[in-house]
């Protein structure tokens, strides 16, 4: 038997190094702490600073007032309004979108055994882009049940893109990875071309389309959160349940089968769940790039390759990462905002390049 490594490992300090890995519980606690700190920072910083102590006091006061408990030291009335209607929904939505993209990216990387996979790989981004562009160009301002149509169109477009890639990939006889990836490339190219065509025909909407394509969380509302939370919750639960089967899948399809794990079923389930998470995130934030690629790699360095630790770390770390990225997007050119996708790419692209360089150097 020739032993093929799926790649050289990271942190090559390790000629002999034994790998000590934190337990899953420690990962969850550390990740939750990071997310909480990021959230407090995200709430604090802005045109009207909201100090963390007063924020916590206000939130405790709100939570405990039904029990007749008063917590002193809270924010003033205006500050509280900013907290509850602007800052908090935005931070929560950033955390949800970041968590969804990172856990989807980590899952895609596992299921395709490809460290360069990201949540947009199978046509989700191109499909969502086409959906949003169509609405911006032909049905601006239309709402359904009080919800703007752009999120719905983006959600439907993302699922259509992935669905087409899956259909094409399976029809082409591919339960194997390469066929599916190639089908995804074909679908994405087609949908992106269609999106460009629509955009070209409607040049006056260019700015709004670009704004959407680059991702943003400005104007985040509680209704956005309620819209995506059920899908995100369901998708994340399925992916966390698939953590062990994903670990088994890492040793190859035949061996996974010999270990009692059905490779094609697990792959399909994970792709569907990860795509659902991606579509939900895209619907409310546009195309925020690099989170789904960079965060899983950072997490892997910290907690190792096992999905039992990696996926929870992605959920919490992705949330923290995007809350901080959104903070930067809001603050750097204040009062104007940078597109969120620009901020994540500024952090993500150099990291990605470094990753490629480090991998290439070890070959």
């Amino acid at each position, binding site marked *: 038997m020739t032993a093929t490594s799926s790649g050289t490992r*990271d942190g090559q300090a390790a000629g002999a190094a034994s*790998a000590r890995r934190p337990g899953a519980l420690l990962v969850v606690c550390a990740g939750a702490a990071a997310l909480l700190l990021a959230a407090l920072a995200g709430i604090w910083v802005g045109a009207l600073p909201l100090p963390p102590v007063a924020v916590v006091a206000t939130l405790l006061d709100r939570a405990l007032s039904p029990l007749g408990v008063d917590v002193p030291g809270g924010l003033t009335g205006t500050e509280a309004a900013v907290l509850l209607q602007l800052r908090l929904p935005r931070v929560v939505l950033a955390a949800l979108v970041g968590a969804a993209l990172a856990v989807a990216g980590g899952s895609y990387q596992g299921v395709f055994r490809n460290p360069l996979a990201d949540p947009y790989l199978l046509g989700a981004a191109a499909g969502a882009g086409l959906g949003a562009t169509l609405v911006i160009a032909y049905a601006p301002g239309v709402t359904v049940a009080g919800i703007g149509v752009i999120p719905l169109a983006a959600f439907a477009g993302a699922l259509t893109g992935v669905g087409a890639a899956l259909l094409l990939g399976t029809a082409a006889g591919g339960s194997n990875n390469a066929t599916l990836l190639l089908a995804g490339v074909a679908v994405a190219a087609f949908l992106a071309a269609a999106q460009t065509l629509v955009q070209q025909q409607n040049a006056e909407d260019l700015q709004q389309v670009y704004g959407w394509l680059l991702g943003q969380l400005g104007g985040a509302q509680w209704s956005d959160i309620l819209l995506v939370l059920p899908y995100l919750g369901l998708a994340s639960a399925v992916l966390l349940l698939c953590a062990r089967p994903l670990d088994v899948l890492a040793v190859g399809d035949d061996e996974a089968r010999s270990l*009692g794990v059905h490779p094609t079923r697990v792959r399909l389930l994970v792709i569907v769940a990860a795509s659902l998470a991606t579509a939900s995130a895209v619907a409310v934030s546009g195309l925020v790039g690099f989170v789904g690629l960079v965060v899983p790699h950072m997490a892997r360095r910290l907690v190792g390759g096992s999905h039992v630790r990696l996926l929870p770390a992605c959920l919490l770390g992705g949330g923290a990462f995007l809350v901080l990225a959104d903070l930067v997007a809001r603050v750097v050119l204040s009062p104007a905002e940078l597109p969120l996708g620009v901020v994540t790419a500024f952090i993500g692209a150099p990291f990605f390049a470094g990753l490629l360089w480090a991998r290439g150097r070890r070959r």
Partner: protein
Amino acid sequence: MTGGARLEVVGLGAAHGRTPVLHDVRLTVEPGGWLAVIGPNGSGKSTLLRSVLGAHPHDGQVRLDGTPLDAAGVRARARQVAYAPQQPVLPEGLTTRDYVALGRTPHRALLAAPRALDHRVVAEVMGRLELDGLAGRLLTTLSGGEQQRAVLARALAQQPRVLLLDEPTAALDLGHAQQVLDLVDTLRRQDGITVLSTLHDLTLAGQYADRLALLSAGRVVAEGLPADVVTAAALEAHYGARARVVAGPDGPAVLPLRGPG
């Protein structure tokens, strides 16, 4: 360990796309026996093993102690049959112990933490295969021979009744190849595990397996004791090879002969 089972392959046929690669293959391996499938490149050896595993679509039946395996689910099958492929994928960032522990997958519930039994089996298998000192090392930093032992340990942690080995010595030098084959031989004698393997080295195949099956163009053209299967005539007919076969102390030894000019 539960001891070996009688493995029967009955009328097995398989194809790659529309090209048939196996025709009506019939083989029996007795409990605790070792049958090595030999044959030239492209004769269908790996496809045969993958069909017995259930990873390749096929006609005919694979039976374990008379019960058809194909009816069993993937998980039930994995408690009986373990497999080590020719080119195992060794994931990054995985320690040797975590890799070996994957062998417990078919015995563990999806969400349950490993039980004491799982830890005990993993520890025992690692001890037997002398992997204790490598438990915390990353799999990808081990040498070829050590990785081969880790793959075997992972298969044994399944506590299988049948072990399928696809070219277990392909990447190893002679000394390491002998170590691995000795190890497999010890395991099957001590635990009675039934072994079905492919082996391209005819001399080693004859020394370790009790029976050989010669596969040529997808058909079993000879099956029996090593000395009856490995003959100069068979090598010429099916391998297109010039060789002299001499009787060695542990089975037939193949001496390749140079061509004229």
